[in-house]
């Protein structure tokens, strides 16, 4: 089954290009560490999922590129072509001249309706190229104007045009200390709208990835390219082919559907966080050894202590049942559902019992249903063993609360509202969005 990626705005397009680049370089790499047959199967599955063979010499990404100004798209197209190993179709992009000016209302209310037909035509064409459409993967930031506003509008259009397809929104959360002054407004507007049309939101926070670059990857002068490459690696570790539990011998044919099924049992809870270990500079890989028990132990503790990366994990945090008092322990991250994805050598014997501990979860689901595992013996991106965790838990509660708090603070002073009113987003619209998100915050808090 194939996934159509929609890259929206500067961030969406920059990350999208790194994702396809990472996927392509992974399948071309010889570090499969598994049988030739397995490797061949993996490569075919990845290609079907993300690339279209067409008549061209190199695989063509199944993607639609959208931006309201031309510079980023033209850079993205040329970088892909220069790699020589894959490219974008020359007919799959849409851009305008003026950009959205970091104004969500401009992206949503002006650019959206104006360009709906053109954009949806491109999406339709990509969807038709798929033998079986597995769903849509959109990449956007929520701080600016195009990815956020136009992205929210396009997601709605996707939902209307493809009511039975899965839609996963990858949303990048900006640095807390500001990339855009009105980022909190744009974020509130985006998240609340996406909540109504998307199936799930997979989130990456720039602050977290930045720390990974600084502390784990040892990069001195971190650029957005570095950040985007880490994000691409983490996304690849989720979306490259795997065998799911009941899937028989072949690679899973419905990754998005299975993701939703495993992780989103209730529509009120759609926010997914992502962790991936190990993460280190490529030069260190030959000198490192990994053990599954070690990786699983770390990943589990990262989950319950809400650690953002493999360093600085708080080992003091324990699940409720192992503490005599009846109060919920502070800092403990309650989960609704978790998905662990293991890639590499000796993957089939790994004991994941610790993730099925009922004390990690809310009481609604059986622990067997709340936890799922996908595996493949084929190693990913030169890591002999790697483990990813996609979690529907309280991971994002604090950052979400912080964003809503700052936005509310600004809203109370009425600053910048005239900029949104110019394009039709009024105070009442803001209030509706705040209400939606306060509801989400309240739901996650009371897990």
């Amino acid at each position, binding site marked *: 089954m194939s996934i159509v990626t929609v890259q929206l705005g500067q961030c969406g397009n920059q990350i999208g290009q790194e994702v396809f680049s990472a996927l392509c370089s992974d399948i071309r790499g010889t570090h499969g560490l598994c049988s030739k047959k397995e490797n061949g199967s993996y490569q075919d599955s990845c290609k079907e999922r993300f690339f279209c063979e067409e008549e061209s010499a190199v695989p063509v990404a199944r993607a639609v590129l959208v931006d309201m100004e031309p510079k980023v798209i033209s850079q993205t197209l040329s970088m892909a072509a220069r790699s020589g190993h894959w490219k974008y179709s020359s007919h799959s992009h849409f851009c305008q001249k003026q950009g959205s000016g*970091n104004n969500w209302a401009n992206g949503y209310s002006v650019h959206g309706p104006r360009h709906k037909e053109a954009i949806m035509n491109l999406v339709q064409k990509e969807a038709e190229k798929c033998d079986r459409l597995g769903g849509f993967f959109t990449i956007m930031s929520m701080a600016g104007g195009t990815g956020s506003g136009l992205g929210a509008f396009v997601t709605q259009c996707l939902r209307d045009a493809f009511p039975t397809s899965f839609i996963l929104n990858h949303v990048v959360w900006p640095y807390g200390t500001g990339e855009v002054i009105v980022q909190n407004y744009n974020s509130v507007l985006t998240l609340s709208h996406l909540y109504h049309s998307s199936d799930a939101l997979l989130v990456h926070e720039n602050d977290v990835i930045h720390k990974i670059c600084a502390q784990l990857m040892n990069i001195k002068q971190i650029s957005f390219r570095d950040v985007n490459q880490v994000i691409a690696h983490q996304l690849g570790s989720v979306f490259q082919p795997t065998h799911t539990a009941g899937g028989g011998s072949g690679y899973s044919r419905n990754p998005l559907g299975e993701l939703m099924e495993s992780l989103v049992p209730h529509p009120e809870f759609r926010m997914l966080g992502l962790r991936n270990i190990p993460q280190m500079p490529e030069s260190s890989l030959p000198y490192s050894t990994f053990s599954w028990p070690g990786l699983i132990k770390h990943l589990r503790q990262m989950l319950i202590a809400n650690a953002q990366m493999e360093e600085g994990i708080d080992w003091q945090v324990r699940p409720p049942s192992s503490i005599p008092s009846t109060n919920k322990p502070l800092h403990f991250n309650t989960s609704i559902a978790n998905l662990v994805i293991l890639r590499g050598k000796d993957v089939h014997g790994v004991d994941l019992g610790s993730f099925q501990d009922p004390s990690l979860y809310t009481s609604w689901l059986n622990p067997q249903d709340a936890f799922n595992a996908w595996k493949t013996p084929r190693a990913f991106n030169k890591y002999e063993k790697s483990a990813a965790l996609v979690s529907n838990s309280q991971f994002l509660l604090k950052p979400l609360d912080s964003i809503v708090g700052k936005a509310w*603070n600004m809203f109370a002073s009425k600053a910048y509202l005239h900029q949104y009113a110019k394009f039709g987003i009024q105070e009442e619209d803001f209030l509706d969005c705040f209400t939606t998100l306060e509801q989400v915050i309240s739901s996650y808090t009371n897990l």
Partner: protein
Amino acid sequence: MTQSVVVQVGQCGNQVGCRFWDLALREHAAVNKKGIYDEALSSFFRNVDTRSGNNGPDIYKGKICSLKARALLIDMEEGVVNEILQGPLKDVFDSKQLITDVSGSGNNWAVGHKIYGCQYRENIVEKLRKTAEHCDCLQCFFIIHSMGGGTGSGLGTFVLNLLEEEFPEVYRFVTSVYPSGEDDVITSPYNSVLAMKELNEHADCVLPIENESLLEIVNKIHQMINSGKLGSTVKQNSLVTSSAGSAKTLQEKPFDAMNNIVANLLLNLTSSARFEGSLNMDLNEISMNLVPFPRLHYLVSSLTPLYTLADVNVPSRRLDQMFSDAFSRDHQLIQADPKHSLYLACALLVRGNVQVSDLRRNIERLKPSLHFVSWNQEGWKTGLCSVPPVGHSHSLLALANNTCVKPTFIELKDRFMKLYKKKAHLHHYLQIDGMEQSCFSEAVSSLSDLIEEYNELDATKCGPRIDPSRLKIAI
């Protein structure tokens, strides 16, 4: 890619404008090695096929034939414009872009605004329309003028009004040179306050400039060069005050160095819209992020570094010094100290080999010493443009919406009131058709209201921070 049009009005406006076009050509020549007319060039220049004379058609792609500035030159005296047309830039403009007269405005805002405004209205509109037609997607008008005289101030603000009426969707960025206290034009306070009302009501963003600040920067540079304190030679073309031609120092006019600073301001402001980068910052984003309330659109700007040493690899420390300098009093283009006043919003546009981690590190470092308004504690707008300015490996433009503009406005109002109370020179204005006493009282009232808005914000600076309570959800 979008286009911008520069409207330069009056003596000051045209002199600064002239410097702008000179440096813009230099910047593009440094970046555009192949002589192909590209999108970056098209933002300020048309490519005209002049083989059959100046009325040739526009060429949209391919080799550069003849670059014409997207500009309108307006002056009610001929001297300045004529000089431009006889100088090295004469081929960049054509006669269809000029509006001149003979007798000037006599340093009288009313003459510029009411008399010449009325007289040249149609002509101006027609020429603006023509310029706009040559643009694929016109995003912004840049007006350059001074506030203290008659033409730049009066006719300049008349044009501002016109632009809002005729092109309401296009942004209006105004670069205004404010008169100093010792200005030799006695009526400059009147002209400035009358012009301020127009800026309050019709501009999207105003970048105020004060000659004193420009002069201080020029002097600082001269001192540094002549004192021999700099170990190695300074790259001549990196001076924020230098003109394009390096052999021009002898023939440079006194204001050229100061005007080059303003020209560089405009180049840096538009760099991220013209060139690529990992985090673009377009002009509409500047307006969106830096203007929280419609009338508070006055942005204090600072440019660093002022010069580059010839033999330097950029160690981190020097990069950090650039950020620190951007917030120091002596790098601001008006006499103001943003560090000790209240920030409503701040934008940092970085050019060159600087990455997001450098930005983050410096913001974290400088934040504690700056005061931001309570509802915008993390009010930073950042942009990264990969192409550095000529002669530099990196540079920074800081734009601050900060209450430190208040003293400038208060002083202006005081100088105005000194004259107004005695009705000095008032008759020169009131005798003009369309001018009444109410024009003056409304203008000063508009200025007072603006000052009051800044006062209210300043009052919040020292108070306790009480965050408004959040919405409560019934479970």
